[in-house]
């Protein structure tokens, strides 16, 4: 699915300029004159990013950001700010926006930021997919195996694990082999990394 750049700006001239720029650079674009129209349209988790004006009548950019997060939508947001809105932009970034651009901005810089935001979206999406996969594999481990994996990931040696769990070192070693295999880890470092990306529960 090709990513979409969602443009939300109340200024008609700037909005159509953004659309033309993005389209001529080959992006799929959807544009909205205010936050409400955008939120009504954007109900699913489509890949893409959002170019969002901070100061708009009706819902402000920050309110739109909050509403998106409230719906669990994680599309990266690039805020467009006037030069008086820096404090607002800082708050937006603290709230998770990937970037902010102070108007006016050159077409090249804007495209560069949009590409980066889309790359972030791409990355976030594959990361999310990966976590889902890891979590699924983790669920397939037995209770004892999960316990061995937790202790291995936290840096304990087989001997220590055997003592803690009250089983033989040989048995611990056997569990470790199963865990490595089921989780798809080829070495200890990989296993530690996978353990950090397991969603709890």
């Amino acid at each position, binding site marked *: 699915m090709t990513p979409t750049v969602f443009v939300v700006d109340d*200024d008609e*001239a*700037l909005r159509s300029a953004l659309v033309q*720029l993005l389209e001529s650079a080959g992006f799929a674009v959807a544009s909205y004159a205010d936050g409400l129209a955008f939120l009504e349209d954007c109900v699913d988790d489509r890949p893409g990013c959002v170019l969002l004006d901070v100061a708009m*009548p009706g819902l402000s950019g920050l309110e739109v950001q909050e509403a998106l997060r409230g719906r669990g939508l994680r599309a990266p947001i690039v805020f467009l700010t006037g030069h008086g809105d820096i404090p607002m932009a800082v708050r937006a970034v603290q709230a998770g926006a990937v970037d902010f651009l102070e108007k*006016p901005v050159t*077409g090249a810089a804007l495209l560069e930021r949009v590409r980066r935001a889309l790359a972030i979206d791409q990355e976030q999406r594959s990361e999310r997919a990966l976590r889902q996969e890891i979590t699924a594999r983790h669920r397939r481990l037995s209770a004892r195996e999960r316990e061995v994996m937790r202790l291995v990931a936290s840096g304990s040696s087989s001997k220590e694990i055997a003592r803690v769990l009250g089983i033989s070192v040989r048995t611990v070693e056997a569990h470790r082999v199963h865990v490595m295999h089921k989780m798809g880890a080829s070495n200890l470092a990989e296993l530690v990394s996978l353990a950090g990306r397991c969603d709890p529960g």
Partner: protein
Amino acid sequence: MSEPRAQPRRDRRPPKAASGDASLRELIENAPDGVFIADLEGRYVDVNAAGCRIFGHPRERIIGRTIMDFIPPEDVARLFAIREGLLRGGDNVAEWTIRREDGTLTPVEVSDTILSDGRWVGFVRDIGRRQELEQDVLRGAEQLRAERNFVDAILDTAATLILVLDREARLVRFNKACETVTGLSQTELIGSTRWFDLIPAEELDGVERATARLRGGESFVEHVNHWRHRDGSLRLIRWRNTLIKDAQGEVSFLIGTGIDITDQVRAEDESRLHLEEASRLQRLQTANELATMLAHQLNQPLAAIATYAGAGQQLLAHAAPDLPKVAATLERISEQALRAGAVIRHLRAFVGRGRAEPGPMDLNAVVQEACGLLAPQARSSGVSLALDLAASLPPVRGVDVYVEQVLLNLLTNAIEAMQGDAGGGGTVLVTTGEIEGKALVTVRDSGPGIDAATAARLFEPFFTRKAHGLGVGLPICRSLIEAQGGRLWPEVHAPGAILHFTLPFTS
């Protein structure tokens, strides 16, 4: 001299005719003065008709009696002294008081002489009338003096300068107020034209022109000129001059009444400067608020320009560029540049420093400009700005920057009044029209309105209903409008505040 009632007596012969020719006798009988003839004892032997009339006694009651019977006792000694003198020769003229038959006293002047034959002749003239006249003259002089004192007191008490000149422009009167203003006394200048030296040389022409207009027939002429005080300082005097002409229509005096307006003009200058300064400060403050707004407004077209330029570059980067599309993009860029220019023009017109001179102005255009300036703010506040402008409004006289400032204030107030409402929104309606021969601008909003208590306090300095704000807006607005000859007032109305202001037409 002869009285009608004396007429019958004229024919009557005196009882004891003197010797001599009849015509002389008649002459004496008809003489206007009284003629008395007495013996050396003072006993009357003859008297003419006028004598009887003066004494107020019939002839028969006079003849045979003596002078002493008719004069007060205290004069008897004087009479004897005079008689002594007369006996030595010569004559005497003296005033006496005669007791008439009815008891009244009458003053007479008597010229006495004793003839060689021993007859004592007295010519008596009634001087009652003369004394009355003399007293009238004295009283008149006294009255004149009193009136002159009275007029002097008025002239010298008046704070008004009063200057009287004769037809040769010589000083006749220079009242106390004139003395105070110049530090010179009337005695130093009276009778001369040296008072001209009080006027600065460059203003003499103006004074001459004013006088010429008076002589040309205007009943009074007003003009303003300076007078130099003895200490060198200048005072500004507003004169109102008039001429006094004699019965022949010739100019006899020029009267000038003047008011020292130095302090008044200075105070007016200061208050105007103060208002200008207050207005400038307020414009700066408003400009500060506008600056943020305008920076945003300016950023929009600039951002659009940069973005269109980027789009154009993208188009040209293609192997076969879509040139019509590039041209359209350039067209967009130029539109947005003009849009940015308009924003800057608005701001510059608004904060433009310099003495704002009143002149003819198109009120509708100023209203449109102010609304144009605030349209983006209204839009981002969700407020709709509506105009209802009079179709043919004659030009008004005023300072457009001030009027725009007042409008921005009223409009900002209106927009902010409605932001207090839950949900925002609302409408601001600006109308122009005419009332009582003046142009009328009305700004009404759909906010909470103005109750009587608020209306009464609306123009107090630092009174504000806004959460933030200095509250200096409306009092200055009103001063600005009044300085231009208009009026600004709120209407007690709720919901929806209504403010009106007027400005005079140019004609």
